[in-house]
């Protein structure tokens, strides 16, 4: 079925900009890709080195058996909450400003999850026996829960990324003029028929509802990896929500950064506006405070309980060897973001980005100061051994980050990073719909009944029929 519009994205009108990254690639892309792939190959080399000589090439030791790999694992899984969770929540809440940011967020989720899982594999002493997890599973192990929940999450969020992509892929099939076969395959024969829209919307909303508990469970389970042991300052009931909050916190921060970069590089100022950053900045501020609340509650409880084993960890964090990292975390997760975001912002984008970078650094430190001090202060008196990552760990960490960025870039070269149909939809239909909705909040007779407030798909469906 030939399409006469192929290769003419400008036919999309104003939204043609969104296809621009796919249609044209600048040389700087390749330069950057090369640099990033350099990091990737270095990480690969580091991993081979580690495989050859053993985990002794890392800075790990007795009793600090876990280090930056596990920190990365928790961190990456945390960031993965950027997308799915945020976009799902915003979708369910009908937050209209979501339309241009959901895609960017969801991609983060899917891609970063691979690195979360990768971190675990890299951390294994015998990755060659990885499949033992399937052959001899022990369902009592929180690590196995993790395996289950992360893979479920990966599946769910991939679907959740893919579903809203379908109309856009169809657009690409029809207009991009590149990789048509590839797009055709992925478009699954999307024609934009009302039935297809109905099914798609249904599916998206089901996934949006599904993905939230899955996402929350993932990070809760990650926290349980620590919380289920009896180790001081790991064995804490608050860890589930604490980790979830931290995850969303870092997720928002990474989303802000990703958006700012996309906006800058692909000239999407029209789509990713200051208001988006303002809203996300507010969200980040809220989570900074929420995060602080949890941190405070956690540490105050520990201090007040005065269990010597816990206190040893507590003091090593607050006043001991890990104090610089701990207070660095407080600075970067609380002081800087709150300081920046709480002020009236003249340049919301820049301040949001600065705050986000700070939060990302801080959240990595937070993961680090959760994992290491506990291990370094076991109940049994032990030699004071300090942990610091070696080049292998740093290389793999950097390589993972670089590869993630690379893959993200590559994604933008194949798929629109801003959801075209959602933006179109917002432009064309949302205004009236919102007006009606707002009216429904106000005193007076219901315009279209209360039902649509609960289930937004109904009016959308009716609206979209005209578009197709």
């Amino acid at each position: 079925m030939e399409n006469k519009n192929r290769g003419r994205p400008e036919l999309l009108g104003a939204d043609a900009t969104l296809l621009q990254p796919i249609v044209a690639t600048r040389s700087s892309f390749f330069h950057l890709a090369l640099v990033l792939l350099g990091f990737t190959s270095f990480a690969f080399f580091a991993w081979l080195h580690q495989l050859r000589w053993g985990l002794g090439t890392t800075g790990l030791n007795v009793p600090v058996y876990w280090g930056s790999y596990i920190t990365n694992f928790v961190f990456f899984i945390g960031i993965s909450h950027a997308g799915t969770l945020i976009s799902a929540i915003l979708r369910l809440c009908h937050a209209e400003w979501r339309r241009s940011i959901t895609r960017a967020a969801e991609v983060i989720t899917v891609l970063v999850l691979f690195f979360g899982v990768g971190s675990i594999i890299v951390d294994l002493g015998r990755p060659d026996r990885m499949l033992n997890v399937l052959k001899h599973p022990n369902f009592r192990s929180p690590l196995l829960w993790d395996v289950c929940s992360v893979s479920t999450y990966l599946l769910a969020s991939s679907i959740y990324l893919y579903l809203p992509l379908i109309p856009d892929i169809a657009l690409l099939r029809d207009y991009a003029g590149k990789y048509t076969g590839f797009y055709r395959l992925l478009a699954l024969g999307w024609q934009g028929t009302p039935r297809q829209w109905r099914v798609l919307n249904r599916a998206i909303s089901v996934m949006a509802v599904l993905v939230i508990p899955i996402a929350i469970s993932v990070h809760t389970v990650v926290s349980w990896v620590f919380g289920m042991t009896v180790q001081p300052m790991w064995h804490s009931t608050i860890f589930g929500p604490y980790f979830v909050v931290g995850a969303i916190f870092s997720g928002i921060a990474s989303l802000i950064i990703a958006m700012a970069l996309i906006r800058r590089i692909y000239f999407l100022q029209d789509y990713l506006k200051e208001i988006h950053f303002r809203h996300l900045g507010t969200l980040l501020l809220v989570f900074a405070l929420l995060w602080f609340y949890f941190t405070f509650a956690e540490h105050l409880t520990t201090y007040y309980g005065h269990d010597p084993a816990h206190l040893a960890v507590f003091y090593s964090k607050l006043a001991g060897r890990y104090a610089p990292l701990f207070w660095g975390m407080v600075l970067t997760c609380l002081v800087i973001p709150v300081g920046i975001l709480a002020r009236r912002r003249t340049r919301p984008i820049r301040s949001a980005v600065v705050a986000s970078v700070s939060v990302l650094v801080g959240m990595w430190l937070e993961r680090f100061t959760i994992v290491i001090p506990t291990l370094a202060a076991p109940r049994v008196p032990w030699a004071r051994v300090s942990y610091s990552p070696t080049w292998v760990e740093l290389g793999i960490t950097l390589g993972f980050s670089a590869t993630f960025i690379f893959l993200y870039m590559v994604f933008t070269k194949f798929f629109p990073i801003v959801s075209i149909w959602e933006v179109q939809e917002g432009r064309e239909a949302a205004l009236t719909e919102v007006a009606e909705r707002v009216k429904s909040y106000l005193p007076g007779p219901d315009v279209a009944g209360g039902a649509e407030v609960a289930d937004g798909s109904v009016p959308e469906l009716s609206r979209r029929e005209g578009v197709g």
Partner: protein
Amino acid sequence: MSPKPNRREFLGIVGGGALGVATSGVTLKGLSTLNAAIASEEVHVPRGPEAWSLSVCSLCPAGCGLRVRTIGKRAVKIQGNPLHPVNRGGLCPRGLAGLQVLYHPDRLRAPQQNVGSREAPRWKEISWEEAMETLTRHLRELRERNQAHSVVWVDGRYGHLRHRLFRKFFDAYGSPNCLHTGTGLEAARAALYLQQGATEGVAYELEHTRYLLSFSANVLEGWGSPVSNMRAFGSWRDAEAGRRTKFVQIEPRMSLTAARADEWVALRPGTEAALALGIAYVLITEGLCDTRFLAEHTFGFEDWRDASGRSHMGFRSLVLSEYRLNQVAAITQVPLETILRLAREFAGNRPALAIGGPQCPTTPGDVYGAMAVHSLNALVGSLEVPGGALVRPDLPQGSHGPHPANTEREPGGTNHARESVIRVEESLLPWPDVSRLPQVLLSRKPYPVQAMLIHGADPVFSLPNGEEFARALEAVPFVVSFASFLDDTAAHADLILPDHTDLEKWQESASPPTFAFPLQSISPPVVAPVHQTRDAAEVLLRVARAMGGEMAEALPYSTAEEFLRSQVAGIFAAQTGYSFSTSLEETWNRMSERAGWWAPTFSSAQELWEEIRLRGGWWEPTYSYGEWNRALRTRSGRFEFYSQRLAEWTVSHPEFVRAGGFEPGDDRLCLPHQLRLPEPPEGFPFLLLPVEVLPLAGGTGAEIPYLQQIAGPHVFEHWESWLEMNPETAKKLGVEDGEWIWVESPRGRGRARLRLFEGARPGVVHLPLGYGRTQGSRWACRGVNPLRLVASEPYSPAGVARALPTFVRVYV
């Protein structure tokens, strides 16, 4: 768009699927390759027939019995010989580590000749024929030139019968210089000599004592016979309620021994004598002494008049006038109440025993301190009673020659043309002090030494004046070492003839220090030599054969085994003792023996030999208490508070008396007393006390990984010297735990890691002994040798070398 996929789409789907399958296939393949790669690295241990054989440990003087498991030709595990009376199946970590000595990768693999200079040695591997030829030629030439006496044999290996062999060799060869480096209880041995007149056999029956006052004796960390001490310790704590032995450890630092004791009394360093005399003060003033013992078996307790009518101060007057409680409390910084309580407990729990003295392990201590401590035993009558201080009877000599090394030589009893290079007659104590060798070598008096043979000793490393020893070795034309590893001394040799390690040779050992019973263990080799090494004893036997004549006649043995057999025949001839047996049999034997019955399990020398091979050795399990004439061999035939030997010696050596700040004729010189404590010199505020830790007991064993790993558990330290310091002191200095820090004494400096330890006394720092080798194993050449920092005094007022309090400064 049709609901059915077209051909292209179909191909795409199939292709995607294929790609997926291929990817996972490759992944699985990769995983299995990886698995195979790692599996190929796995170490597979060959199996073989299992066997057990006996041996003897010689890593410390205790000579515990070993039971070694062999698989095929490999020795794979060392355990204790359950029949051996010293260890009864237990072992300390050192004994277990014997395997790593045997299979140490840095052992010398063949004889080495120095083809470079002494300063810059270059080692060339030579054949045994060549090596033997060189040794024999040198020794023969010296003998032909009538210089046989100028050959010096320095031995540091523990054992007994081997020493007899060496002595026989040098007696026949014509050298009086068969020296031994000693076993680390020099101060106690000196006190025994000065107060009881016995030259050998410091023995304590720790197991049956009910109250043990240990003055800086690291009972659980290498003092005497560690394993039998530990057994005694275990039996104290096993006792039924109310009968537990109280173990009081008195020392400045809380050592592991102090930590395991029932009480630790922190004492100002070097004031052991004062504390002992303070306790004596309480015993005397409160009438807690054993007056009958004092009256019948002691001399110099009360004031006395000599033949010329001159009156002398007795122990009692000295203590009452100069060691009043408050004085002692001030000197020792031990609370007055503690001293009082210790004295009352000591007197109230008999048999009570006091051991030790101010002694830095591996370096000689202060004789007066040891005398003061030993005097406490006399005050409560703990000599020659069960659970008291004993004198070990000598081993039966059989028909084979005099008692070996380090015993008193009868004046004029030598058959040598020349006197010994270290003139025992000049010194207070009747055994030669190897630390005087450098002086002798350098001064070439009484005669120049032409050759030095060093076996099992590393004086350059282990003597306080090691550097001097190294310098002095330059003056010796021919130096031979029998070291198994290239050690600090061997590095100065011309020829190294590597000795077998324990498990490769016929092993033997006599009673360990502080053990009260005569004992001789003998065991055959467990495994074939790993390298081209030879037993030093067999080397000498070969030399004797090669030299022929009277040498060959004196040593008509072709192997070490033959020699040992001949010695066992001597033991059999004495018609006493038993081969090792279970403790039950031993109890039976002891009971019968006490009643006067002796029922040995052997009836001929051959049978005894076979039993020894089967069980590990022979011993005499019964001690005859109260053989006063054996235990008290002083001129007065009594225990001498006032040592007449000291009196006699100080008269003839006024220069040492004056050096000690005394007037000649001062009675205090002959009585135990507290030496003056030196003040720290300007700029050196900290006192350095080297400490001995069990894994590196005697300052040896640093090359053994097993031992290095467990060297300092109390500060989580291993593989490296550490400097122990009190946290308060460190705070004042502004230094932190784990920092690398310089320790500098007027003699030298070294760098160690700082470890804060609450058990270290403020103002005192400690370095472990055994570190800081400069030669040898890759694992041993680490850390600082504290002996390179401490000052020593070859002749104290008591005429005995002792380590002086050494002050250091510490900086980053």
